[in-house]
């Protein structure tokens, strides 16, 4: 595994490096690529990003540690982040978050034994009018009237089936939300 010399990422890496007058600015987009390759931001990824951006590994590590979207430990295949901030909590997000952890049989921030799901709560995700809502691998999961446990059970079952089924389900809910927006 590697990002340097990996054909899969070559074009994207070059594009990011070309965007800025200073290579250091590419550290954030390249950390995302490292996370994509290794599943989390590990020492190998940090060393490669440091080499690409002409930085010290320590500097790159400090950037990875400062921002919450870089994971410093391995995650499940699906990273579920439930917003439990004020606007979502007013519409039952705290309970939804707890029920989700219970359903998956994990503690806050934990990963299921089969390595499928990691779940945790996060701060405001800018989806307050569709509360409660969550993010799955950085893609918004929202439904008209807000997510319920019924939605989440459907989501878990779809993901356990295969990724295509899951993406189809999320897209279906998104289409319903978009339709509502266009008609508003």
């Amino acid at each position, binding site marked *: 595994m590697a990002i340097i010399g990996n054909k899969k990422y070559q074009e994207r890496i070059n594009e990011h490096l070309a965007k800025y007058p200073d290579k250091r600015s590419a550290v954030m987009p390249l950390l995302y690529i490292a996370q994509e390759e290794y599943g989390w931001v590990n020492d190998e990824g940090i060393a490669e990003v440091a080499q690409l951006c002409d*930085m010290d590994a320590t500097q790159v590590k400090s950037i990875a540690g400062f*921002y*919450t979207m870089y994971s410093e430990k391995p995650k499940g295949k699906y990273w579920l982040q439930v917003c439990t901030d004020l606007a979502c909590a*007013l519409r039952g997000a705290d309970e939804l978050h707890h029920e989700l952890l219970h359903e998956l049989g994990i503690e806050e921030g934990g990963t299921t034994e089969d390595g499928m799901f990691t779940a945790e709560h996060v701060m405001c995700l*800018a989806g*307050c009018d569709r509360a409660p809502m969550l993010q799955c691998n950085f893609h918004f999961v929202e439904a008209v009237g807000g997510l319920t446990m019924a939605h989440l059970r459907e989501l878990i079952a779809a993901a356990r089936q295969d990724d295509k089924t899951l993406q189809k389900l999320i897209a279906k809910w998104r289409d319903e939300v978009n339709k509502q927006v266009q008609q508003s």
Partner: protein
Amino acid sequence: MSETKHILLRWKDVKADFRKLAEYRKHEGFEGLKKALAAKPEEVIDVVKNSGLRGRGGAGFPTGVKWSFIPKQEPIKYFVVNADESETGTFKDRLIMETNPYQLLEGLLIGAYAIGAHTAYIYLRGEFWDIAAQLDACIEEMRKEGLVGKNILGSGYDCEIYTHLGAGAYICGEETALLNSLEGKLGQPRVRPPFPANKGGGLYGEPTVVNNVETIANVPWIMTHGADAYKAIGTEQSAGTKLYCVSGHVKKPGVYELPFSATFRELLVDICGGPSVEGRSFKALLPSGGSGPIVPLNDKVLDTRMSYEDTAKIGTIIGSASLIVMDDSVDITWVASKVTKFFKHESCGKCTPCREGTYWLDKVIDRIMAGEGSERDITLIENVAKNMAGITLCALGEFAANPIIHTIKQFPDDFKQHVKKDGKAAKPVALPAAGD
């Protein structure tokens, strides 16, 4: 605003899909840019100045004035759009980018031309992963029609636009922290002066303008219809329309575009349908997300216009217009706790009053929430909060102090019911139930 209903969500009036470049161009799209490119940069700045457009990120600073601070003689300048939208209860910039992306990109080009920048960055919060991809696709569509890159619309003006994703840090919405983050450094605020507009203060040390998404999305309309038409909408000190984000206990939460002259009642009762649960009534309102002062949602507030000057009169701000509505089932102590936890999590750790203060506020409120607090704790949190406000490098220290100071001031009984009196155990905070 008799005929103009929407400026930022124009697609609603003409019933078109503005996510498609052809549709957008059919309905005045890029007319503002054409007008701008035919004028001198300083003339464009004058139009924006005269329109009365103020920054929609929260501070309300006059946009044209901000642009005029950029020194002309400097060869390199940058234009940066702040799409970090992370304030609790804010989801308006997301809607602009999702439904009207070209209007933002057009406004960006007009701004960049006005200040003489040839490179522009859009800094998006990391969670806007899909939106960044959509904007990248829009920029490529524009390139095919000569609307970005070299010699835009044959004018001889060049400009490149790039998107940059953050990675989950509220502080990066603060403009100097945003610039640090864009430079590949920790997203922490810088010491000012120099300000971003000054040499040495902006991106890579070059003069830089940082504007919010909603601010910039107003600019094409202003160029097309003129400063006077824009000024005619809204109130004397708050020109134009605003996207109001409504969340919490109303029947129809969402983003609504209204002139600044509209009242809270028109929005929360007439449009959003009043309290979401039958039999409940409004109790409190956070008009500007977690960071603005909370107010009781009474008749006086409901009859106030949602402008910069009118909200100041009732002791709060309109800021980013992120209205979080709470009904009478909510204990405001819990609200203070939620908001304080947000700021504790988001404090970047650079300034001691904010880093330590948010930690202590959270600890003491948790104690009160558990029914373990004393009346002295209320004085203690007021003292801690007062020692955070106004003495940090950025406004987050003050934002973090606001919820406590104002919740205790406006809803003292909510706090007092939880503190011990004469050694008797107090009542812990009941949390709102699902579906409330």
